[in-house]
């Protein structure tokens, strides 16, 4: 072999020389560091719109004729996937640039109780968690949220919540969902979490009586703690107008940098950077007989709380700038 022959395919300028192909651009959790190439127009390009129009009309017809299925909690999977999720996904991906870590800790089938920290004045973190689960979980699971009864008191809101898969936070419902193999999402801090001042951010509030733990113990469902960073900065609460809140019958009346003095504009969340970390599941199948033991329940609730608090600190170190990229 001559030297020329040897070096032929290594030298630039040679006819057969090719630059090594770069690795394909990978999406990193909603971030798009490299602008994606537009999808090549398909061969049947004009048909895409025909298809969309036909699909849209078929969807409308199904909705108007009542030809859809709803489960016993009022969950409407078709409406959720076709309407709610795409809208929320815009917030999730483009506004909050959400990154999801540790999705492999969420069981791929069977029941599970996802327990998170609650913050952000209105419960956007719960909604983003459902989107994250649908978007990132390999089985695209639906997360069934447990909501405060205040949500179900409000007309319209109650029906939206039910259609999106939520139900009232009470043990019978939680146990029923978990025994039927659903993923249940719960925020034990409740209004104490979302109504706290900005100065208290990322400090977990009291976890109530740990009712969520006894529900998980009774059904032997694993508990998956999840830490959500980013929701605190969406509507930072500077003050809480308690008398006004009492007058309106709500748990708190927030004053944020934009609300209420900017009016409806104050409802736009600040574009903070979100990180969602799922922690390793805590098995409970071996503790079923301790569901009524207050000490076991309390200790387990405390363990979940500590895990979430520690993970929050880790995540905050990963995210030095709340409004960074």
């Amino acid at each position, binding site marked *: 072999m001559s030297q020329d022959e040897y070096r032929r395919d290594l030298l630039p300028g040679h006819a057969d020389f090719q630059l090594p192909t770069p690795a394909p651009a990978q999406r990193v959790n909603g971030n798009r560091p490299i602008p994606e190439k537009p999808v090549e127009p398909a061969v049947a390009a004009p048909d895409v719109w025909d*298809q969309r129009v036909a699909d849209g009309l078929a969807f409308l017809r199904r909705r108007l004729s009542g030809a859809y299925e709803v*489960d016993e909690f009022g969950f409407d999977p078709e409406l959720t996937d076709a309407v709610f999720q795409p809208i929320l996904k815009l917030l999730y991906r483009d506004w909050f640039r959400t990154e999801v870590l540790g999705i492999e800790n969420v069981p791929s089938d069977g029941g599970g109780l996802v327990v998170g920290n609650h913050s952000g004045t209105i419960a956007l973190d719960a909604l983003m968690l459902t989107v994250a689960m649908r978007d990132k979980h390999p089985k695209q699971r639906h997360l069934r949220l447990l909501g405060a009864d205040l949500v179900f008191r409000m007309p319209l809101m*109650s029906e939206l919540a039910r259609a999106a898969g939520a*139900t009232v936070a009470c043990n019978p419902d939680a146990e029923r969902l978990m025994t039927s193999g659903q993923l249940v999402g719960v925020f034990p801090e409740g209004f104490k979490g979302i109504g706290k001042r900005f100065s208290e951010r990322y400090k977990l509030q009291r976890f109530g009586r740990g009712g969520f733990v006894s529900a998980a113990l009774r059904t032997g469902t694993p508990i998956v703690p999840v830490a959500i960073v980013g929701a605190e900065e969406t509507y930072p609460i500077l003050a809480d107008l308690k008398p006004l809140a009492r007058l309106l019958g709500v748990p708190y009346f927030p004053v944020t940098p934009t609300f209420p003095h900017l009016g409806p504009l104050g409802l736009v969340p600040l574009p903070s950077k979100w990180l969602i970390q799922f922690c390793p599941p805590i098995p409970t199948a071996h503790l079923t007989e301790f569901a009524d033991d207050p000490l076991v329940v309390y200790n387990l609730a405390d363990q979940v709380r500590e895990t979430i608090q520690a993970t929050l600190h880790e995540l905050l170190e990963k995210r030095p700038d709340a409004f960074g990229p």
Partner: protein
Amino acid sequence: MVTSPPRVVVVTGVSRYIGARVAARLAADPRIDRVVGLDPHDPPAGLLGLLEGVERIRADARAATEAIAELDAEAVVHLAVTSVPDVQHGGRAAMKEQNVIGTMQVLAAAQGAPGLRKLVVRSSTAAYGASFRDPAVFTEDTEPRAVPRGPFARDILDIEGYVRGFRRRRSEVAATVLRFAPMISSTAETSLTRYFAQPVVPTVLGRDARLQFVHVEDALEILHRSVVEDHPGTFNVAGAGVLMLAQAVRRAGRVSLPLPESALSTGAALLRNLGVEQIGLDQIDLFVHGRVVDTSRLIREFDFTPRTTAEAFDEFIKAHVAGSTITADRLAAAEQAILDGIRRVRAAASPAPAGVAEPASVPAGHTSAGVRAGSDRS
């Protein structure tokens, strides 16, 4: 425990549809010697044909005491429970008299009957009340969280209270309490079927209740079995599955008219005073909160699965086509017309290659069956 069917059965409330049907079914059962129907009112002419094999005693609840003891009844089926006040028969006062005082007296009579082995009481899922903190699905052990507003629901709580007292005092009698979801079928007429049969259906703005129905025939089967077999306890009776109120209205091809809850209450009260239509607080509570029950205990104990809610409602729809405006067939036809229109406009705009207009017919294809079915009918 399997015991022989009772020889003498007393059925109360035979002047009403369910009572008459149950009495007729029991009378047709060869294992039962004697079926006696008790009712203070004469049954309407339409039900008389059903009651041929039934001995009828026209007696109010007080006189019933003697009847039950004299007849040496082995089973009492208490169906004289009214869900809606009947203006012709004394309105709400008479309804309460019949539901609460009537039950009290029937149970007192039953308690005094030495040969009694079985008691079957018709109750309703209204027993769970209506509260925003309620679980989504009621099991038989769920306690109501608040005293309900509706008169019928309050009567039901009273009735079940009397049955609890009866069970304590006569623990050897197999007492069955059946909590029925609203009954529906192609022929039965209740306030709820009249409601869904209207061309425009008023609903509560911002609320979409989860509803369950039970088919009348399945309800009768359960009642019959609880008389001839032994099933002590309390059972939810409903069809599996859930229909949302708006969904049910749409499936029935009706137009819903959402009104604020206060307006609906006021309107209903006005109409009630005029004696026109009977939408009470019971119905409004149902439409605000919805009501779904767990029927696994019923299915396990009776080894019988009622028709699903959707199937029962479908039968109702088929019998009430008149009055529907937005039917599935018409929607499918409209969809097809729009798609055809788009295709025609596009074909006219660009004399494109032949392949363009073709694929549009593929998604539309599955609707054309519906269109054909619609045109066949007309």
